[in-house]
């Protein structure tokens, strides 16, 4: 895992926001004191994304279903535009995520967006994933070969 205080790339920030539980994001957003001044350029709106896999895992793409996705685009009074996309139907989560994507483009807000929202969310999702990995690892099969008593 990267340094705890290093600013995240725009894409990494979107990874964190897209996978964040909506209620946790809303709480961190309320507690952050960041300005909620964006106006909606688009959405929040829910639609579908066709999901693709690859034939055989690594071959030609094929469609194997769809997922609900909610997106939003927000513009700050100072002109920065933020975008957000995430699986599911949580509109407030999309609106907040787009606002954060815009706010982190402003040098005076970027450190707070990072420290108060993105890093705690990333830390908690990292812990959840590590816990799941450790639980799965406990079900690893350790094979051993029986010695046949025929000597």
């Amino acid at each position: 895992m990267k340094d705890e205080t290093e600013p995240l790339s725009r894409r990494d920030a979107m990874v964190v926001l897209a996978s964040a539980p909506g209620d946790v994001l809303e709480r961190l957003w309320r507690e952050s004191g960041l300005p909620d001044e964006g106006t909606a350029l688009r959405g929040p709106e829910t639609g579908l994304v066709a999901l693709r896999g690859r034939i055989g895992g690594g071959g030609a793409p094929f469609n194997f279903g769809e997922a609900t996705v909610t997106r939003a685009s927000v513009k700050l009074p100072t002109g920065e535009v933020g975008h957000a996309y995430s699986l599911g139907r949580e509109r407030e989560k999309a609106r907040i995520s787009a606002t954060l994507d815009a706010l982190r483009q402003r040098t005076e807000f970027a450190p707070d967006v990072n420290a108060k929202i993105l890093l705690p969310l990333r830390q908690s999702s990292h812990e959840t994933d590590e816990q799941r990995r450790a639980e799965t690892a406990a079900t690893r099969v350790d094979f051993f070969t029986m010695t046949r008593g025929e000597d």
Partner: protein
Amino acid sequence: MYVAVKGGEAAISNAHRLLADRRRGDRSVPAITLDQITEQLALAVDRVMAEGSLYDPGLAALAVKQARGDMIEAIFLLRAYRTTLPRFGHSRPVDTADMLVERRISATYKDLPGGQLLGPTFDYTHRLLDPELAGDDQAEDPATRAPEDQPMPRVNEILAHEGLMEEDEVLSEGEEPTDITRTPPEFPMGRDARLQALSRGDEGFLLALGYSTQRGYARSHPFAGEIRIGEVEVEIDVPELDFPVPLGRIRVTECQMVNQFKGSKKAPPQFTRGYGLVFGQSERKAMAMALCDRALRAEELGEDITAPAQDEEFVISHSDNVQATGFVEHLKLPHYVDFQAELGLVRQMRREFEERRNAAERKEAAE
């Protein structure tokens, strides 16, 4: 002749009111919540998402509740809902080699790289009903162990360098995969369109067909090369951003079925593969899908088509349980006029039959 039939409005309205009452059941029992369904009936939710062809656990749970646990009705509800939403685009193909794995097993390699991880499986349980679950069961916390940071390549990559395992076919640049939800299926289909149909196909139907291939109807000597379950990242390209936008993760089950292939005029003897990829933790379905995928490649691989599981038009046309239930259940709708017409016809045929018999009897008596 078409005769409009009116009436029954009050009966229908009261029937729906009665349905709502029976769905709720005994009021002294607490109503089931969607969280309870997604958490505790998770595999039912997964099946509804897979065959409803829409990944959204909350909506699938609602569908299960609304349908009183009738899976095909719930799948129908989810399919109907998806038609109300606009489509934003398509994802980049998910990379199953980069999965956050929750289960991964192979029946062909004991010591495959990354190891065998059983995960939350019904396998090796004794299938004895557990009376403790009848109460408020307090499950133990799972055991943990430090994970090994090994990559987990897909099983086909192990034999690939010897050329003994067929390689993945690649589409030429710029070629778009078929989408059977946008263009009506035409036969013969490409493998991409078949896989899309199989991924949303009815688990029971595909299971029976897969089973038939094992019993000798299109024998294909399958091995479960690998089954993996876990979460994969989903990304989408959008015009407003110059990098693939992450959407979050979805849980999928992938099955690589490995089949002996004796070779053809063009291809040397090798192992071929059937592929399954299904939403959620849906192991049986992914295995059945992979068996059917392999059987349906008969023509491509120059095999004789002798069995139902190899007949593309038969399999794909009957694999969709929403279509199937629609056509079977429409038989409940009023067919009064059709039936009156057939009744008239049968009466006439019966009259003619009697006349012929009577004439024959008279002739016999006269002789």
